């Protein structure tokens, strides 16, 4: 019961922010906020695979692409018709569009989850570097396939997607992925994932079905990447394969690594930081990528565990440490 109250409260808060924010800030800032949110969803979902379960997945953009395209096709074929019908029945625009977007996101996420399953299953026998390369390969194959299928636009992509994404839905996505990650982490299933990360052989010897859990991590991670993709396409009004290259995958990996693999709050912070950074560096746009690559290298050399290591941002823990710093060790 208490849970439902929290949930209702959060949704109400989101709705309030969703209405107030666009009036309070200029469109550019709004755009940055929305991109931050989308990147947070990507980072936290990848953290499930890389951080919690210790699987090297560097093809996340592929899942995002599947979600983006699937949700777009759904919207353009079915969604817009629903909205028209609902509005004709008198439903307010935001409600009809919101419902259609939700459906589209679920379709996109669902199909991305299927892709996650297909990628996760055969990759299971591989470890470390090999797994990384295969996930990279799958990400690229998805992109090349999209390039070659003319029915979904090929190299030109698809345009004319209605702008249904707004602060509320992005916020809802962030809330969902963070909640799922957090609940998972503090459960026996999450412990199973961490065990697989720390020592797969021991985990298996103690009764953890490592195959099932690794695939589960991929499926859930891919689902949310797909949702992020759907939000992305319904914001930019157009999709094409160039948005989902290996570079995008690396950007998401960088966020997870910068934040600290396994740390949800770390992923959130890093995603926000790395979304803001290009905006801040806009004046030196040409040097941006050089800065970015140097940052990656320096980060790995100096602090490979990232900002948070595998710990979470937690107020009680922080206060405890302050107190013990003044008392006996």
């Amino acid at each position, binding site marked *: 019961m208490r*849970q439902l109250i929290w949930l209702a409260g959060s949704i109400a808060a989101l709705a309030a922010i969703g209405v107030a924010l666009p009036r309070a800030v200029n469109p550019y800032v709004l755009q940055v906020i929305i991109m931050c949110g989308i990147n947070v969803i990507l980072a936290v979902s990848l953290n499930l695979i890389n951080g919690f379960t210790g699987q090297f997945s560097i093809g996340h953009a592929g899942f995002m692409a599947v979600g983006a395209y699937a949700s777009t096709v759904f919207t353009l074929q079915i969604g817009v018709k629903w909205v028209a019908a609902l509005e004709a029945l008198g439903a307010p625009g935001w409600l009809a569009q919101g419902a259609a977007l939700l459906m589209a996101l679920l379709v996109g996420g669902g199909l991305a989850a299927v892709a996650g399953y297909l990628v996760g299953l055969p990759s299971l026998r591989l470890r470390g570097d090999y797994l990384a390369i295969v996930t990279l390969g799958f990400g690229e194959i998805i992109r090349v396939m999209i390039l070659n299928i003319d029915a979904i636009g090929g190299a030109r992509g698809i345009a004319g997607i209605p702008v249904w994404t707004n602060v509320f839905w992005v916020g809802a996505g962030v809330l969902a992925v963070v909640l*799922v990650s957090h*609940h*998972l982490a503090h*459960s*026996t*299933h*999450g*412990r*199973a994932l*961490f*065990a697989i*990360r*720390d*020592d797969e*052989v*021991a*985990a*298996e*010897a*103690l*009764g*953890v*079905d*490592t195959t099932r859990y690794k695939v*589960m991590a991929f499926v859930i991670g891919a689902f949310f990447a797909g949702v992020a993709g759907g939000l992305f396409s319904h914001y930019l009004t157009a999709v094409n394969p160039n948005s989902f290259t290996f570079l995008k995958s690396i950007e998401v990996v960088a966020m997870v690594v910068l934040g600290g693999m*396994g740390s949800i709050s770390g992923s959130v912070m890093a995603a926000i930081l790395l979304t803001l950074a290009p905006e801040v560096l806009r004046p030196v746009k040409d040097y941006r990528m050089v800065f970015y690559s140097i940052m990656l290298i320096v980060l790995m050399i100096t602090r490979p565990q990232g900002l948070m290591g*595998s710990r979470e941002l937690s107020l009680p823990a922080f206060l405890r440490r302050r107190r013990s710093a003044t008392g006996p060790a």
Partner: protein
Amino acid sequence: MQFGGLKAVSELELTVPSGELFGLIGPNGAGKTTVFNLITGVYAPTAGRVLLDDQPIQGLKPHVIAHRGITRTFQNIRLFSTRSCRDNVCIAGHQHARAGLLDALVRTRRFEQDERSLMRQADEMLAVMELEARADVRAADLPYGQQRRLEIARALAGRPRLLLLDEPAAGLNPQESDGLMHLIEDIRHRFAVTILLIEHDMRVVMGICRRIAVLDYGVKIAEGTPEQIRTDPRVIEAYLGEEVHADLGGGH
């Protein structure tokens, strides 16, 4: 069990009666850990069968075998280093958890109850191994002796019928191994579990094992009570040495 051209374990016939404390010894490289790996499903035997209560289990995946009631510790400690002691032990309880994924995500009452009972059982197990004070400490931060005990606690938490201990006394000083010996005997009684023990520390082996099998180059060269093994000429020869003879023969 054959790896390429190497027969790591061959023609091994080993029967461990229920409730027994059975020792498995032999020089380094004799194939003892390979036997453990065969039992727990890490390897599938290239020939032969592994039976648990007359049921064949060879070729099954390790986690299935764990569900059937066989857990183990490892020669080189394999703890979940970033997790707390309690979490390490909780993992073993995972197979007995009834709450599914959806329960966990939505936090149903069933999930909360499950978690509470898991934690409680973990704490009990830690208490048995005298680690309850360290429940929240990261496994990697424990001193070596306590890490070994944590591994045993974890294996026990899986509620096994057969517990495999791979050199639990390795690296322990004589006092610590004495304590370990008593602990293992205690465990066997308290939890009514069959124990198969690999050890090099002869004091521990002779002290607590009821029956011992000796492996050398993958072949069983002797089996019997500690007394019989102590005086078996083939065993002494395998270990090559008067020091070992003194170890086996001298009273401790």
